[in-house]
């Protein structure tokens, strides 16, 4: 294709050997126009972020002026009485996402290791795309699967077992009668986090120079010791950045969490109780919200979510930039 383009060009070349003055001017204008349009598009994409911040804060303004910062830690949420507070939602968001990350990150890093160091080339070409496909499943379908398939299993098998075995730790309390719980939501979030972290960490591990690993092997290190001593230390900050990106994804997931978390109002030590998250509260109540204060409070949740999400994203960027893996490859 590139060759064909080239020859078409050569044929045209004699015609443009002596370009007319008009054509030159036209070219200059067109160059400027192309630059202008492209710059405008880039500016627009930056403007969208600013506009999102502005609109969400603007929408939250009534709630911000009514509740102030105490909104963030107040735990009462009673739309009928016009009392709103994000405390329990903030708690649910952080707990469900952190549990998801605690389960998901080790699995995802192991998958990254398997795909980059262990798997034979043929298997790698199959399993890699399959893991990435996990990220392509729409969250609404994952949530639906969560309600009907995962939740009964969690409630009937997993939670009783964990409760019986580790019940002395308060987070493994008695299971609820339905499978809807923060724990189920965490498991669904885990499924969403794993492919993101796995594919980034695979790319990181692949960029670790072959010679360094071979050097370690030559010194008698076993495969695990190569990973532990060379691969992981040299990619550590990249892996942390990948996990933060995964965390950002988990924090902001609304739909699937709404479907499985059970919309509880209280803060419980047990993971097996129902709860709710910022994003899922917006998704479940926004379509039915009528009073201005209720809508504004939901926007306020959005503001909090936006701030947490931006922090985790920027932290990922910052940590990721401190460790540029292309530097290693050189």
């Amino acid at each position: 294709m590139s060759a064909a383009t080239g020859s078409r060009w050569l044929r045209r070349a004699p015609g443009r050997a002596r370009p007319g003055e008009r054509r030159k001017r036209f070219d200059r204008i067109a160059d400027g126009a192309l630059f202008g349009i492209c710059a405008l598009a880039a500016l627009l994409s930056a403007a969208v972020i600013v506009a999102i911040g502005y609109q969400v804060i603007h929408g939250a303004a009534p709630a911000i002026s009514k509740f102030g910062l105490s909104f963030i830690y107040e735990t009462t949420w009673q739309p009928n009485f016009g009392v709103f507070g994000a405390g329990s939602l903030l708690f649910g968001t952080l707990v469900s996402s952190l549990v998801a990350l605690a389960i998901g990150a080790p699995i995802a890093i192991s998958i990254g290791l398997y795909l980059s160091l262990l798997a034979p080339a043929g298997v790698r070409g199959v399993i890699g795309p399959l893991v990435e496909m996990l990220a392509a499943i729409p969250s609404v379908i994952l949530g639906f699967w969560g309600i009907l398939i995962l939740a009964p299993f969690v409630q009937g098998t997993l939670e009783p077992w964990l409760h019986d075995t580790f019940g002395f730790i308060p987070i493994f309390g008695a299971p609820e009668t339905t499978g809807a719980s923060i724990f189920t939501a965490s498991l669904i979030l885990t499924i969403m986090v794993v492919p993101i972290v796995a594919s980034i960490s695979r790319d990181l591990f692949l960029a670790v120079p072959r010679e360094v690993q071979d050097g370690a092997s030559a010194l008698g290190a076993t495969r695990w010791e190569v990973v532990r001593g060379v691969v992981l230390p040299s990619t550590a900050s990249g892996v942390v950045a990948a996990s933060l990106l995964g965390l950002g994804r988990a924090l902001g997931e609304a739909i699937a969490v709404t479907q499985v978390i059970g919309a509880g109002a209280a803060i419980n030590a047990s993971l097996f109780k129902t709860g709710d998250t910022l994003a899922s509260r917006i998704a479940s109540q926004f379509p039915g919200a009528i009073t201005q204060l209720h809508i504004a409070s939901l926007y306020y949740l959005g503001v909090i979510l936006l701030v947490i999400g931006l922090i985790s994203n920027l932290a990922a960027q910052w940590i990721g930039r401190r460790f540029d893996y292309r530097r290693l490859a050189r």
Partner: protein
Amino acid sequence: MSTAAFDPTAPLTPSGNLRRRRAVSRVAEYGATGAALFAVAVLGAVIYTVLSRGAGALSFDFLFSGTPTGIGPAILGTVMIVVAATVIAMPLGVLVALFVTEFAGERVTAASRLTLDLLNGLPSIIIGLFVFALLVEFKTQSGFACSVGLAIIMLPLVARGTQEVLLLVPGNLREAADALGVSRWRAVLTVILPSAMGGILTATVLAVARAAGETAPPLLLSSVFSGKEAIFNFFGEAVPNIPVTIFTLSEEGSPDGFTRAWGASLVLISFILFASLGARAMHARSLRKMSS
């Protein structure tokens, strides 16, 4: 790799812990393999459930007729919304990528990259809130508002994908164009974009696959349907779509509704999986073409 002090005079006898180190390594290998298989098993479980439960719901009537028996309007609506979102996002994304690769200096490139990453990391529900405040509040929900929301989700995906493939366009093509005295815009339109076309389409298809399944924006922007059959006022009323259909049916909790939700899930998931598989194949082909 023990960090104990190295003693060159120590006799070279195998210490007893070699067996233990081998075992640890073996366990780690099995663990990593197991994790990969586990992820594939979860994917298999989800897809199997959708296939086995959704297949029963599929019928000509289900795919083409309106509510309550079928999801015809939802399929049509999703297609309309996603097509409109693509029409907005694809040119913008390509232009942003062109700006970054062809015109911008190093600092602007870094800033633009950060912008796209932040945009990509935004929770989709926030985008829903934003477009609601922009286009829906004090007016009505509309398919168009939903398209705008999905376009914001697609923009960074298209831009990043295009950017990557533009960087792969061989430098000698650009140099040849410069050597022939071709102006920048002609070079971009007739040389660079055509040779990057495969990659641009791949990125767009992947973005479409992502957008088609997004539920949070449609839930806020296009979810209160009039129940009409297939004639939509795209700019003035909510347009039925598959994700919201699945969501509402799954929250209702009637067995009959569940069956229809599985059917709708099957339609959606097969579209998405085929689109991403197709994009992957296309990507491999265009890479091969570019390297040859």
